[in-house]
């Protein structure tokens, strides 16, 4: 089946003329039609655009054009703006919103010839760990439709896992590509903060948000990242440093690599099968020649409270613009203030409101020092933990989540339990460093488990090399969810 190809395999076949971009796109659109009514990964499927882009790609392929992603069908998380295509960030407050501009990350993929299949579901404004906070519907985990795909980039992860896209873009603020990659059994890379432009990424927490990629292999994620990374004059926080050839970094060679295993990442209450699988994966790295040692990241336990002060604070300002005045739907009240209240009150979901209130509180006069400022100070300590660790090790290997995918509805009434599902991913986001997740096993119920590999800022090459070397020596990533 064409949809079983990896991104890089499909690229070779397209270039060899063995398949056409239209065929490849059609195959994915058909699979979406067949499976998405159950999985519900897509908020919008852009079939006409996709076919037109595929036809154009075929014309270019015929001329020998070797744009890196020419004719490859991808899915885009709906928090990334796409000119002319409805972009909602999973929120009713942006229902029907058609942006007049395309996010830089998406633009670079499209310029490289990618075919956009559609926009994928997300927790509203990327706030959540299950896609249950989407303002539209819940996405289901392709491995078990009763379970969540993770979040907030659950739609993209599920689409890739279910073979409804060759690859996808997600965004990661506190683990939003890594946790769903683990839950859905796909590969991901969360780049260093600033490595990929945030222009057009509908902001949740500006100092944490970063665009990430999903693929069925590490190689696929490296290809997508190579295209997407790099300085963007529209994003002052994007790093102006050269982009290495990430594909070239995938040597398969990790002999002598120093791998740190932080003791704080193996906690009481985590699912034993997850710990076993991750320990086994670390043993595998050792078998490949890596030098594994235990390390300590002593401020890890503060990552969760720090994150839930910093991110909501920034979000409370970022989401102030959704007032119904200039775009998006407006719920009219008798006065300006009633209109604000009605629009925001009726169209934001409960989790978004909770975080706006948390952030507003943390930034308020009299509380700022005790909450926001204190959190920023502890954030510096967390960053220093990593700085110290990376003086001694090249990468850090950890579990991605304490458990495998949980049941839909299981944690919706308990926000704190929900927040805990990101406990292993938050610290890296706060530190602004990079990481990758690769499938490293399955639990007794057939649910995927992910190995997280963290690297220092701008350490994408070493992280990808490690993840790739591991993946080359295992076959977890080749398994397919039991779908129709």
């Amino acid at each position, binding site marked *: 089946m064409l949809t079983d190809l990896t991104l890089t395999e499909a690229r070779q076949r397209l270039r060899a003329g063995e398949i056409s971009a239209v065929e490849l796109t059609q195959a994915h659109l058909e699979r979406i039609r067949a499976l998405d009514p159950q999985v519900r990964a897509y908020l919008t499927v852009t079939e006409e655009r996709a076919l037109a882009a595929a036809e154009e790609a075929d014309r270019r392929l015929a001329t020998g054009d070797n744009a890196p992603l020419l004719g490859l069908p991808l899915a885009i998380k709906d928090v990334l703006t796409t000119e002319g295509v409805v972009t909602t960030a999973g929120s009713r407050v942006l229902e029907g919103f058609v942006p007049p501009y395309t996010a830089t990350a998406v633009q670079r993929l499209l310029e490289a010839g990618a075919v956009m299949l559609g926009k994928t579901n997300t927790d509203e404004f990327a706030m959540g760990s299950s896609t249950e906070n989407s303002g539209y519907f819940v996405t289901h985990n392709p491995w078990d439709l009763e379970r969540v795909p993770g979040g907030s980039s659950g739609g993209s992860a599920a689409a890739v896992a279910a073979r409804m896209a060759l690859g996808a873009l997600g965004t990661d603020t506190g683990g939003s590509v890594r946790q769903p990659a683990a839950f859905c059994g796909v590969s991901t890379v969360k780049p260093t903060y600033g490595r990929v432009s945030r222009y057009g990424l509908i902001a949740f927490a500006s100092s944490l948000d970063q665009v990430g990629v999903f693929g069925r292999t590490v190689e696929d994620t490296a290809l997508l990242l190579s295209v997407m990374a790099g300085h963007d004059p529209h994003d*002052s*926080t994007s790093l102006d440093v050269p982009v290495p050839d990430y594909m070239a970094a995938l040597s398969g060679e990790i002999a002598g690599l120093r791998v740190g295993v932080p003791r704080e990442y193996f906690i009481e209450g985590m699912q034993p099968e997850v710990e076993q699988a991750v320990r086994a994966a670390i043993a595998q790295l050792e078998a490949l020649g890596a030098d594994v040692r235990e390390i300590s990241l002593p401020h890890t336990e503060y990552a969760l409270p720090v994150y839930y002060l910093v991110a909501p604070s920034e979000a409370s300002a970022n989401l102030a613009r959704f*007032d119904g005045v200039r775009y998006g739907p407006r719920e009219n009240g008798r006065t300006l203030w009633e209109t604000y209240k009605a629009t925001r009150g009726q169209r934001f979901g409960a989790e978004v409101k909770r975080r706006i209130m948390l952030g507003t509180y943390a*930034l308020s006069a009299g509380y700022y020092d005790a909450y926001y400022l204190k959190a920023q100070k502890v954030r510096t300590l967390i960053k220093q933990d990593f700085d110290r660790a990376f003086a001694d090790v090249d990468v850090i290997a950890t579990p991605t989540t304490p458990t495998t995918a949980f049941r839909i509805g299981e944690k919706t009434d308990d926000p704190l339990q929900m927040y805990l599902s990101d406990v292993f991913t938050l610290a890296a986001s706060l530190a602004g460093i990079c990481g990758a997740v690769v499938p490293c096993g399955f639990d007794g119920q057939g649910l995927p488990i992910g190995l997280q590999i963290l690297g220092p800022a701008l350490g994408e090459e070493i992280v990808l090399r490690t993840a790739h070397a591991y993946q080359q020596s295992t076959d977890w990533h080749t398994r397919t969810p039991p779908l129709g």
Partner: protein
Amino acid sequence: MSQYEAVIGLEVHAELQTRSKMFCGCAVVDSTSAPPSTYVCPVCLGMPGVLPVLNHRAVELGLRVGLALNCEIPPFNRFARKSYFYPDLPKGYQISQYDYPLAVRGWLEIDLPDGSSKRVRIRRVHLEEDTGKLTHVDDHSLIDFNRAGVPLLEIVSEADIRSAEEAEAYARKLRAILRYLGVNSGDMSKGVLRVEPNISVRPRGEEAFRTRTEIKNLNSIRSLARATAYEIERQVALYESGGQVQQATMGWDEARQVTVVQRVKESADDYRYFPEPDLPPLEISRAWVKEVRAALPELPSAKRDRLMQQMGLSRYDASVLVAEKAVADYFEATVQAGGDPKQVANYILGDLFRRMKDEGRPREQIGDIPLKPVMLAELLALVAEGTINHGVAKKLLGTLYAEGGDPRRLVEERGLAQVRDEEALGQAVAQVLDEHPEEVARFLAGEEKLAQFLMGMVMRALRGKADAQAVRRLLQAQLEARRKA
């Protein structure tokens, strides 16, 4: 003298005349004339996912002002988000500066009507973005976003100002400096410069500050002076009648010439400032500061001193000339073209200002009148060389002011050159004396003031084109000759 004194601080918002806005590429346009919301883009409209990119030119213009106001420029700057909801604020927060402003601890020397001067301390100068503009029509409001994101400089003084006159002098001086620096047109009626006084009064000798009010929507410096004076009196009257001043934002009712309460502040606004995560901190290198400082133009006080020392002008004349950059430029261009500084100053401060006032033309538009500096210099040269006298010069000024032209050619065309031929002048004097035997007799009998009458008759006979000194000399000589005869 009142037993109360006013305590006033001024908060000034000045739009910076950059080509593009503070954080996007949109052009900065005259928001009173451009079609509404036409110079906008996703960034200044606060659309989802967009990011600000700092316009470094705005920082440079802000630095100019900070340095001109004798401020310290901290090496570390950062932007902050100031959150509040209002329809003219697209993002729901304004990108401003809070804990690390562009410039701090400066001072401005103001010139008072009695000729003295005073230093008013500047607390801080910071950069921020302007909001859109609301127009209220019947029961709804329209928003023009052309102004949204225009770079704005907020200049905050210490509460060193003690009267409406000082407030006015501060505003005038600051506006002059902004114009000298080329950063702002100073047009308060268009809202590109907004001056808001914070006013409280207290019994003389009392140390503590009392409750203050703030006046907004002042569209001229004259309104500022009047509103401030009114508000001081209002507060004094309140205290004297046993009342209390309520903390409030006041508006100025131009028609009724009174301040009116717009909004009572019961508690301090909480803007929930926090560092702007979309912009990296701004480092201001010492080299940059040095460069900007070196490129600063001569500022009004320095120029005033130079006009006094090098050109021998009085402090008053020099102060008036430098108060408007356009006037100072006009003056200097005329002197450059050969005009005698004192004569030039006299003509500008006298005839030119009077004519401009008559036609309602503000002084800053002196550069637009048809009479150009070279023409004025030429006119004065004609007087200096004796071709015409001041009387003729002032008549010609009317023509030149209205239409411009070459003064020398005008003098020729109209036959206005002075009669300098001693013989012709002598004949004219003799003729007048012959025609007025009675007045001559009375003069010779001791009525000396009649000399002035006879002088006037001679000048009239010569249609004013005579060198008055020569005429006076010849008249005296002939009168003396007749006395002896």
